């Protein structure tokens, strides 16, 4: 492995946790990439994938808490996690500033995720040597 060049990845997740396997496959991939010495420039949540950034999931205690697992991984490795703003607002995922702007009763964005536009995906495409997508299966 040491002879391989170092790569940088943008990972795009479009499948929701507890509906699809996409977030769990993506996390295993991301961990392996980091372990191999590569970098993950950013993780971009799009479409139903934005539900991964919810701070209000409460799965049964004997099931993996995917938002928490992702949150810890991103924080530990200093990787930006970005939920697409258009996908997020339609699907009920908001941060504090969107909560105020739309006069909603609460915010539910899990740290360290942020909300931003598709430009973050475009930039990732350009900056990273590989962009990988994790879609809903079926």
């Amino acid at each position, binding site marked *: 492995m040491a002879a391989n060049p170092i790569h940088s990845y943008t990972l795009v997740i479009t499948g929701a946790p507890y509906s699809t*396997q996409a977030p769990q496959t993506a996390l295993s991939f991301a961990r392996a990439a980091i372990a191999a010495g590569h970098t993950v420039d950013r993780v971009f949540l799009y479409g139903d994938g934005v539900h991964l950034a919810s701070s209000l999931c409460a799965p049964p205690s*004997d*099931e*993996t808490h995917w938002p928490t697992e992702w949150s810890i991984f991103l924080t530990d490795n200093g990787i930006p996690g970005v939920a697409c703003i258009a996908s997020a607002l339609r699907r009920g995922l908001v941060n504090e500033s969107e909560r105020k702007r739309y006069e909603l009763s609460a915010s539910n964005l899990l740290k360290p995720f942020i909300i931003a536009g598709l430009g973050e995906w475009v930039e990732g495409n350009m900056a990273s040597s590989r962009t990988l997508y994790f879609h809903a*299966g*079926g």
Partner: protein
Amino acid sequence: MGTLMVIDQPPYGIWAGREALDMAFSLAAFDQPVSILFTGAGVNWLRTYQDTREINQKSVEKNLSAAPIFGVEAMYACARACTQYGLGPENMVDGVVLAENSSELIRQHSHTAFAG
């Protein structure tokens, strides 16, 4: 003749099949007659030796084995789908009845439901 829950979604990749099982068990818990038909990619729920530890999901193999105990009247598997996916008596959980004609089975039940 009660409710037929149909599971045509593959295991683990998507959640809908798991949630259909929950619906079936829930009907049984309330003493409502219910059977399950596995068809299409859904027959793969019935394979033995599922070991889901490395994908961090709960295996449903034990739940399925316990279906009769929970009051599920019958578990059917579409014979054609079993052939397609190489499922036979040697690698299928016990207690499953092969259905040569899924459409006829649907016709015999007063309710037919999918979970998604």
